[in-house]
């Protein structure tokens, strides 16, 4: 197990000894992080304005999400959890699809069935998540297992939080993957909190990557605010998987800078000072300083880029808001492959009531 902390973009900026990526790729990474950040920020504002009902921001975790997705190939399947804005956007999910899902409108690829911030799209190999913690880990194992049987060169990756490592689902999936050397990556965003519960109340082991040793698999602890370190760790894990050397558990140490969701108030369980000091480790700030040091970036470019993305995001929100809600029939779709008699009956009943708007308050 390699539990040493990997760091490529030191907090005190200096040119990296050797960057694993080209300048173009570095800028692309940065771009994706900024899109993720701005999508989250704008969504939070839209929520305050009452234009969005619910949202789960990943502010502060962009390096972890974008860096890891960037290390994958398009044929790799991604299993995000509910905190997946950076994941979806790094997979190049168009802003329209992204915000149609948040609004659950009639153009949402999930048909408005799922909760906001539960992004998925089969055309991008992003599997739509549920809300219960870590149930998707064994799905990622199963997909990779099937691919292995079919001799397909691909891996799967599942994302979850520090809190998730306590779940029975985590244990079952990781152990199984270990036994069969399944080509999958378990990617833990250790953002220090499970809602209000700090990670030291979650488990007595301080180094979550240690957990890998219980399953005889490789565990890696990586600075989750260092996008290049995350990228490299994920890339290595991917190669390890494809080589037949089994799954990797990656702990990306980061911090949730925002609220748990739009209905959370972090001030109830942590102080302003703690948050402020965490902001100093903002992965975007850090990466932009790194790019600046490399001579690839400057303040002006940054402003132009941010303004452009803000506009795109605002437009996507406004447009998504204007698309109507799904029709009543969609309530009964996709329960089964074909509708059984009792759902036909219930659909008929529902149609009758939808016309007559609710009158009694």
């Amino acid at each position, binding site marked *: 197990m390699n539990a040493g902390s990997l760091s490529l973009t030191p907090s005190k900026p200096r040119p990296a000894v050797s960057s694993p990526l080209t300048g173009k790729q570095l800028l692309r990474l940065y771009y994706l992080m900024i899109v993720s950040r701005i999508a989250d920020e704008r969504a939070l504002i839209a929520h305050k304005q009452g234009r969005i009902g619910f949202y789960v921001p990943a502010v502060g975790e962009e390096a972890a999400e974008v860096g890891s997705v960037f290390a994958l190939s398009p044929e790799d399947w991604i299993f995000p959890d509910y905190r997946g804005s950076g994941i979806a956007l790094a997979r190049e999910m168009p802003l329209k699809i992204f915000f149609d899902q948040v609004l659950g*409108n009639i153009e949402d690829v999930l048909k*408005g069935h799922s909760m906001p911030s539960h992004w998925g799209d089969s055309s991008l190999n992003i599997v739509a998540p549920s*809300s219960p913690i870590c149930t998707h880990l064994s799905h990622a194992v199963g997909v990779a297992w099937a691919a292995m049987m079919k001799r397909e060169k691909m891996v799967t990756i599942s994302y979850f939080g520090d809190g998730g490592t306590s779940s*029975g689902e985590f244990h079952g999936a990781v152990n199984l993957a270990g036994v069969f050397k399944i080509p999958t990556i378990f990617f833990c965003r250790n953002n220090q909190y499970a809602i*209000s519960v700090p990670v030291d109340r979650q*488990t007595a082991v301080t180094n979550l990557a240690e957990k890998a040793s219980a399953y005889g698999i490789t565990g890696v602890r990586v600075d989750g605010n260092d996008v290049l370190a995350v990228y490299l760790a994920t890339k290595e894990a991917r190669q390890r998987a494809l080589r037949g050397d089994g799954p990797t558990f990656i702990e990306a140490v980061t911090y949730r800078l925002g609220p748990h969701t739009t209905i959370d108030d972090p001030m109830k369980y942590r102080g302003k000072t703690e948050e402020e000091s965490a902001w100093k480790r903002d992965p975007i700030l850090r990466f932009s300083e790194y790019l600046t040091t490399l001579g690839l970036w400057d303040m002006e470019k940054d402003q132009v880029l941010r303004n452009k993305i803000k506009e795109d995001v605002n437009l996507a929100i406004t447009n998504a808001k204007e698309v109507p809600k799904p029709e009543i029939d969609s309530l009964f779709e996709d329960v089964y492959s074909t509708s059984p008699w009792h759902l036909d009956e219930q659909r008929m009943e529902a149609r*009758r*009531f*939808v016309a007559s708007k609710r009158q009694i308050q």
Partner: protein
Amino acid sequence: MELTLVQAVNDALREEMKRDQRVVVLGEDVGKYGGVFKATDGLQAVFGNERVIDTPLNEQAIVGASIGMSLKGLVPVAEIQFIDFIHPAFDQIVSELSKMRYRSGGQYAPHVVIRAPFGAGTKGGPYHSQSSESYFVHTAGLKVVIPSSPAECKGLLTSSIRDTDPVIFMESKRLYRSVREEVPEGEYLVPLGKARNARPGKDVTILTYGSMVQVSMKAAEVMCEEDVDVEVIDIRTLMPLDIETVVASAKKTGRIVIVHEAPKTMGFGAEISALLSEKAFDYLKAPIIRVTGYDTPVPFSLEDQYSPSPERVIAAIRNTMAY
């Protein structure tokens, strides 16, 4: 004092923790944070973090540890953050909580309350909206209690904590903050196993519970205008059911509408319907009608259409009256 339902939960817990040292509260985020719905707000400050415990994210361990604590004389009240997240603990509930007294010949009897918010109405999508009471009513050895208002909630939760059988106590999220009512201060008990006649009537009986009592009451009011006198029975305790009250009302009116938010197929309405056709067959003037959630997951966007509305209840009443 006037309280919301979630405040009534808090009040009941506070009173019982004060009265009985054995009572402890545990769950995810119940301590410092006071619970995601604030049901346990302030308890840790008063009773300390030994009695108000933030646990790791593992429902099976929460229920299992609660069982253990109770065997050693504590009375744990575990919070499951949403009933939708009780399923990881399903084995603990079905195999242990409900059967331990039985398998041990009465030697080990867990005295545990599991509280969980349930139901649609807060735009929670498929995993923050379910009404799972059927699973628990079907599991012999559990009691299942669902309050319909703040005062009811305080009284029933207090009784549940004192009851020596395991209780699944389900709180309608829809009611958490939407109603306020006078709630008796200090000790207040509403007995388990007794239904409440929320609105006496003579033409039709509505059998319901939780937030659907309100919906049914609204429908009943509207039906006055059509000169239909609707009786609304608040079931309160699904297991054990107050069969006497239910059957008596059915015999009186002969027309039955059952209203719940859970899906229709194998919802609690099925059991009531079956019981009434066993016990009041000759009195039934029309088919028993079930107005329920649909047999689908709860969709995010069309959630409003999912749950029974007063309009749907009214239509059912009209149907049974016209039969």
